[in-house]
C-alpha cells in the first residue's frame, strides 16, 4: 500500500494510516479497480499510478510552500511594518507555466495512446449486451445462446462487448476487467475487455437508470476455453425434465403467467420482455445479482418482485403460496 502513504501524508496522516490499515484489513472487495484481472484494467491502473505519482508530487510541492509560507510569514504581534511589496516576477511566472505543460505531456501521451489502443479489433469475439431496466441481456451472435445477468467468456481472449440499450442509458462496468462504457438507446458502443485469469468477476450498472439502479448487477464468469465450450453447448442443448406433479403444475402455471415475457430453452416458452431463464439453476444469483439463487429466494422474488428490487418491471402477480411452490419446483428443473 505504498500509494496511500505517499498520497495523503501531508494533509491527513491519520487518515492515511487508517486507510492503509483498513485496506489491508478489509481487503479490496470484489469490484475494485485496484486489483486488475486483465490487460485493460492493468493499463488503466498503470495510468492511475502514474498520474497519482505526478499529482502527489505537485501536491507535496504546493503544500510544502504553502505550509512554509503560513508558518514562516505569519504576522508577529507588534510588528506593523509593511512587508516588501512584490508585484510579480516574469521569470518565475514563465517557469510555473512551462513546468505544468511538461508534466501534462507525460499524461497526454498514455491518454492518447490508450484511447486508440482500447479499440476492439475486428477479430475479437463479440458478445451483444442489451441493457434493460434493471437487468442485463447477453447474446452470443452465431451460437444462438442468450442469457441474462451472467456472461461466460473464455480466458485470455479479447472480447468485444457490443453495447446498446432497450430503454434508458445504462453503463457496463466490471472494475477488475476494465473501465465502463455506456449502453445508449439508438446507438451501438463497443467495449474491449480481456480477462487474464479464470474466476468470477462482478459488474454493476454505473449510470443512473431509475429506482432499481443499485440492483442492476451481473457476473462475468471467465473459464478455460474447454470449460467455456462445454458451457456453450450445454446452453445450446438445454434439457428440461419435468417429472413430479408439482413440477408439471408449475410448468403449466409458467405457460399461463410467465411465458409471454420469459424464454426457457428446451421448452416452447419464448417471451422476449424479461430475462431469458434457460439453465436458470446454473446461475449463482437471481434478480440481477440482488439475491442468491436458492429456492427460498426464488419464492421470495415470485411473492413480490418490486418489493425485492425497487422499480422492477415484473409485477406482483399475487400468486398463492401453492402456486409459488409449484413454480419454484418447475424453475428448479432448469439446469
Amino acid at each position, binding site marked *: 500500500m505504498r500509494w496511500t502513504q505517499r498520497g495523503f501524508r501531508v*494533509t*491527513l496522516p491519520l487518515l492515511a494510516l487508517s486507510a492503509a490499515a483498513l485496506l489491508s484489513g478489509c481487503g*479490496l*472487495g470484489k*469490484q*475494485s479497480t*485496484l486489483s486488475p484481472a486483465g490487460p485493460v484494467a492493468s493499463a*488503466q*491502473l498503470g495510468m492511475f499510478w502514474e*498520474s*497519482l505519482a505526478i*499529482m502527489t508530487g*505537485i*501536491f507535496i510541492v*504546493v*503544500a510544502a*510552500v*504553502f505550509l512554509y*509560507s503560513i508558518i514562516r510569514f*505569519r504576522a508577529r504581534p507588534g510588528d506593523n511594518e*509593511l*512587508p516588501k*511589496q512584490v*508585484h*510579480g516576477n516574469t521569470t*518565475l*511566472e514563465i517557469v*510555473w*507555466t512551462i513546468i*505544468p*505543460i511538461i508534466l*501534462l505531456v507525460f*499524461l*497526454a501521451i498514455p*491518454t*492518447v495512446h*490508450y*484511447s486508440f489502443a*482500447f*479499440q476492439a479489433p475486428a477479430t475479437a469475439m463479440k458478445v451483444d449486451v442489451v441493457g434493460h*431496466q434493471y437487468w442485463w441481456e447477453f447474446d452470443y451472435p452465431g451460437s444462438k445462446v442468450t442469457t441474462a445477468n451472467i456472461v461466460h467468456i473464455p480466458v485470455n481472449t479479447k472480447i468485444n462487448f457490443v453495447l446498446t440499450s432497450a*430503454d434508458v*442509458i445504462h*453503463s457496463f462496468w466490471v472494475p477488475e476487467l476494465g*473501465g*465502463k*462504457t*455506456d449502453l445508449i*438507446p*439508438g*446507438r451501438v458502443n463497443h*467495449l474491449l475487455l480481456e480477462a487474464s485469469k479464470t474466476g468470477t468477476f462482478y459488474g*454493476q450498472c454505473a449510470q*443512473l437508470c431509475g*429506482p432499481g*439502479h*443499485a*440492483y442492476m448487477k451481473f457476473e462475468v464468469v471467465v473459464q478455460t476455453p474447454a470449460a467455456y465450450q462445454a458451457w456453450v453447448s450445454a446452453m445450446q442443448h438445454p434439457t428440461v425434465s419435468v417429472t413430479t406433479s408439482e413440477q408439471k403444475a408449475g410448468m403449466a402455471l409458467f405457460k399461463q403467467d410467465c411465458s409471454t415475457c420469459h424464454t426457457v430453452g428446451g421448452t416452447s416458452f419464448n417471451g422476449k420482455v424479461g430475462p431469458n431463464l434457460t439453465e436458470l439453476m446454473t446461475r449463482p444469483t437471481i434478480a440481477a445479482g440482488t439475491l442468491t439463487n436458492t429456492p427460498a429466494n426464488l419464492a421470495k422474488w415470485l411473492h413480490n418482485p418490486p418489493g425485492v428490487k*425497487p*422499480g422492477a418491471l415484473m409485477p406482483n402477480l399475487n400468486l398463492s403460496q401453492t402456486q409459488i411452490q409449484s413454480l419454484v419446483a418447475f424453475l428448479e428443473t432448469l439446469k
Partner: protein
Amino acid sequence: MAAIPERLVAVHSESRTYTGIWSWLATVDHKRIGIMYILAGLFFMAFGGAEALIIRLQLWAPNSHVVSAETFNQLFTMHGVTMIFLVAMPILIGFINAIVPLQIGARDVAFPRMNALSLWLFVLGGLFLYSSFLFGSMPDAGWFNNAPLSELAFSKGLGVDFYDIGLQISGFGTLMTGINFLVTILNMRAPGMRLLRMPLFTWSALITMLLILFAFPPITVNLILQMFDRLFGANFFVVGNGGSALLWQNLFWIFGHPEVYIVILPAFGIISEIIPVFAKKVLFGYESMAMALSVIAFLSFMVWTHHMFADGLGPVVNSLFAITSMLIAVPTGIKIFNWLATLWGGKIHFTSAMLYALSFIPLFVIGGVSGIMLAMAPADLQYNDSYFVVAHFHYVLFGGTLMGALAALYYWFPKMWGRMLNEKLGKWNFWLVFIGFNVTFFPMHISGLLGMPRRISTYAPGNGWTIWNQISTIGAFILLAGMLILLYNLIQTFLHPADAPADPWDGRALEWSLTSPAPEYNFAQTPLVRGRDAYWLEKREGDGKLQPAEPAGPIHMPSPSLAPLGIALTIVLAGYGAVLHSTIIGGLFLLLTFVQIGRALLAEDHGFHVTPHVGGEAQ
C-alpha cells in the same frame, strides 16, 4: 435583517415610497438585492444540506432502508440541483451584487429593475422547484437529468416538469444578471478605473458573466426541448421516433462545464481579494491572474465531452477533449502559484476570512489534481460515475466554491450588514467545517476506486465500501456541527448593534472607503481612481481620502418598484399552468407577464434625488 440606515437629508421624490417589508420587495438597490440573494442561498442550503445528511444516513450501512430507492433518487437529485443552482450561484451572485458596483465606483448597476427581476426569478424559481414536493414527485433523474430517463416514458411524475420549468425560470434570472453586470462593469466604471485597474473580484465577475451569457442559452434550449417532449409530444429525445439520447448530454454539458467555472471563478476572485489584504502584500502577478481567468473561461467551452468519455464517442474525440481538459490545469496552476507567491514574504493575519481563503488553496489543489486524473480519458473509464468523481467535484465545489463563499461572508459581512461576525466562533466554524469536509469527502476517493458507483441507493456488503461510507457519514455530521456554529454566529451577530468600522481589515479596494454598510447612493461623489488597489493607494500615498471626480450635489436614484416582483410572480404562475397542463392558467399568466413586460418597455422612470450627508463617507 439589517436595515440600511437612513442617511438622506432631502428626498425629492415623485415616486412611491415603500416601508418595512415592502421596501425590500420593491427595492432596486444592488446592496439589498445582494443581501437577499445571500440569505435566500443560505435558506436553500439548509434544504440541500438536510438532503445530504439523509443520503449519508442511508449509506451508513449496507442494505439499509432509511429511505426508499425512489426517495433516494429524489434526494440526490434535489441535493445537486439545490447546491448548484440555488446555493452556489446565488450566494456568489449575491456577493457580486453587493460588492462589484462599490469596487468600480458606481452608484448602481446598469439596469436596477432588471436586477430585482433576476433576484425574484431565482427566489420564486427555487420555491417553485421545491413546491414539486407538494405535488408528490420531486425531480429524480439526477442533477443533469439525462434523457431518456427524464422523458415521459420513464419519468411519469411531475418532478421532471418542475425541473425543466423551474430551471428555465431561475435561468432567465441568471442570464439577465449576466447582461446586467457585463454592461455595469464595462460601462459604469468610475473615471480612472481602467480594466487593468479593476480588483480581481470584479475581474472574476466580468468573466463569470461572459460565461453565463454563452452557457445559459444552451441549457435553456435543452430545457425547452424537453418541455416540448413532455408537454406537447415532441420527439427530441424520444429515441424510437428519431430523437437522440446524446443531444441532451451535449447541450447539457456545453452549459454544464462552463457552469462549473461560473461557480468557481468568483471564488478565485474572492481569494485574490482576501489574501493580499491579510498578507499585507500586493497581489503577485495581477496581469497573469486576469489573463488566467480569461483563458480558463475560453477553454471551459471546449472540454464538455470529458463528462461523456464513457459514451463511446471514439478515440479521436476523447483524445482531443482530454487534452483541452488537461490544458485548463495551466492557467489554474498559475493562479495557485501566484497566491503562494503573494503569501511568500507577507505578514499573514489569521482571521476567519483568511483561514477560509487559505484552506481554499490545498483543497482546490486536491480537487484540481484529481480533475487532471479524470481528464485521462482511458483511465477515466474507471473513475467515471464512481464515487471518485463525487469526491473530485466536492473538493472543487465545496473545498473551492463554498470555502470561498464562506471566506467572502466573513470578509464582507461588515460592509454588507454593518456588523462584524464573531471571530472566535468563526474559528470554531472554520475548523469544524474544514475537518468535517475532509472526513466526509476524502474517503469517497477510495470508495470510488473500490468500484462503488455513484447514485446507488444502497449496496451489498463484501465490497469493502462500508467503512469508507461510515467515515463519510461521520464527517457529514462534523460538517453539520460547523454549519450550526455559523448559524449561531449569524444570529448572534444580527442581535448586536450595527457598529462596524468602515475599514476593519485595512482593505485595498474602493468598498472599504465607504461606511459599513455603504450608503444607499454608494459614493457621495464619484471617485477618481488613480491606480490599482485604489483605496490602499490613497491610504499609503495620498491623504487617505478618495479624490472626487465630480462636484458634490444631489444624486439621482432609480425609483423602487414592485413591477419586477410582479413579473416574476406571473412567470412562476404560468409555470404552474404548464406543469399542470392547464392552458388557461398557463396562457393567462403568460399574457399577464407580457403585459407587464410591455409596460416595462415603455416605462420612463425619472427617479428621485438625494443629497448626501456631509461626512456620509468614511474618513
